[in-house]
């Protein structure tokens, strides 16, 4: 955590906390669904849990990037975003060649797709943030 400044640490803690609470909520709902309605929406329970974690992790990644708390001060966000963009795109492209839903349940083949989406979220959130900040700076200048 030493490479992050105090604001970045605070944001990471804040959205880490929200992700944890979100994950607990998802786990609770999933557990109740399987207990009461005997619903199983993925091949195995481990996969269900993994997918729920991915959702919470995705939320953390998006919010960290959007609040400028994902990349260290010393990193060049543009370069890393480009790398993650291609990694994500590659994973998503490969994952579409295999079926990830079988008999109405999500299969292990979805892991590649989830990986790809998580990588892809980083540059997507970064671009949106840059756009929002540019507009904000433009509005500030116009106000002056």
């Amino acid at each position, binding site marked *: 955590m030493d490479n992050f400044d105090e*604001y970045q640490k605070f944001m990471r803690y804040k959205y880490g906390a929200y992700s944890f609470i979100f994950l607990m909520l998802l786990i609770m709902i999933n557990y109740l669904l399987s207990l009461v309605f005997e619903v199983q929406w993925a091949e195995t329970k481990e996969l269900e849990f993994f997918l729920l974690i991915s959702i919470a992790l995705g939320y953390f990644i998006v919010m960290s990037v959007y609040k400028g708390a994902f990349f260290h001060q010393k990193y060049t966000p543009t370069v890393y975003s480009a790398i993650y963009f291609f990694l994500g795109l590659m994973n998503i492209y490969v994952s579409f060649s295999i079926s990830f839903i079988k008999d109405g349940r999500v299969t292990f083949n979805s892991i590649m797709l989830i990986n790809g989406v998580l990588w892809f979220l980083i540059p997507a959130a970064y671009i949106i943030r840059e756009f929002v900040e540019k507009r904000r700076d433009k509005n500030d200048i116009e106000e002056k």
Partner: protein
Amino acid sequence: MAKNLRLKTARARLDMSQQDLADAVDVTRQTISAIERGDYNPTINLCIRICKSLNVTLNDLFWEED
């Protein structure tokens, strides 16, 4: 939280961009932006570093406005 316009003015007076000030106090540009927008309350240590960089006192930048 209210915007910190005094910080923005003090920075502009020295012809410093947000990035220049961020580099001077070893934080990211987003942190300076968040402080100026009133979205983040910096710690006292960061407040002191900012004041030293801008050659002003804590009162000048961070005391309550009437």
